């Protein structure tokens, strides 16, 4: 699978490194080159400096050939914008994005984005640990 990841934070870098280790073709895009330090030394994919909400940067990163796009920047709204560009402008078959705000996550899920909400998931994990 050809995967384009926007945002090389802890989650983005970890996802990129593990998909790469599984043999997928991975490109990571970030506006800050310093963030690429988080990639594992064995990472064999491409790390590219660029803004994932800019169509030219996305083209350079090979979005037209991507099977999946994952938006993992710190900003919910940046993720939402980039994910919608990937889905509606470039027709990427699978688009996933992180949205911290649970209500916003629900809304965009209803609008057809595969939106993952860490807030709900992590709160639930803690609750189960405490209660169970």
């Amino acid at each position: 699978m050809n995967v384009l990841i926007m945002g090389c934070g802890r989650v983005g870098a970890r996802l990129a490194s593990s998909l790469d280790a599984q043999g997928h073709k991975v490109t990571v895009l970030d506006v800050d080159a310093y963030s690429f330090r988080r990639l594992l030394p064995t990472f064999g994919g491409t790390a590219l400096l660029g803004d994932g909400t800019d169509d030219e940067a996305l083209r350079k990163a090979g979005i037209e050939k991507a099977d999946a796009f994952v938006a993992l920047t710190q900003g919910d709204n940046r993720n939402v914008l980039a994910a919608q560009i990937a889905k509606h402008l470039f027709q990427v078959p699978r688009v996933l994005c992180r949205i911290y705000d649970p209500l916003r996550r629900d809304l965009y899920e209803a609008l057809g984005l595969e939106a993952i909400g860490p807030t709900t998931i992590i709160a639930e994990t803690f609750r189960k640990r405490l209660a169970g």
Partner: protein
Amino acid sequence: MYIVVVGGGNIGYHLARSLLSEGHEVLVIEKDAQKCERISEDLGSITLRGDGCEVATLETAGAGRADMLVAVTDHDEDNLVSCQVARHRFEVKRTVARVANPKLVPIFRRLGVDCVVSSTMLIMEHIEHDIPTHSLVHLLTIADAQMEIVEVRIPPKSAAVGRKVKDLSLPSGTTLSLLIRRQERPQVPTPETVLQAGDQVVAVTLPELEEALKLALTETGG
């Protein structure tokens, strides 16, 4: 009308002031306490402190009964999300977003924002007339019909010079509706009209055909 303005910076402030003076009910949503205070002092208690992208804030703002939401923060992506939440969650009939990056205008439209305003593009449209290198000038956009009226000046080296209108490779969906030639009365071009260098042609076209129209009238002959 009840109009919700998201973003209480300079644009939001002056927009709220103008809308109030026209007799509308206005609420400004702004995160920053100082900006809220400034607006409240000058314009009355029309502010709500909060994040205008959040469902909860818009709920408090009574977005459900708003006729319009105008998002004018400094962040393009926040303006998009405010408009989309307003439209899809609160069924606000008309949404307006400001964008700093003009490349986002068609994308925001496609994502359902009714009206997208780029100050960069507005300024460009106003100065295009004064920049001779711009051979295509926007005169009018008819938003509802997705049409626009543009003016193209035929450059001396254009391949269109000396050719009849019917022989030009104009994009279909484009009509040349007026020809302005120096020292002559404006005329409606016919298929037989022969174009001359310096002619000004007023055409009705679609935004996506603009570039093809410009090429057909201005491209240098090979």
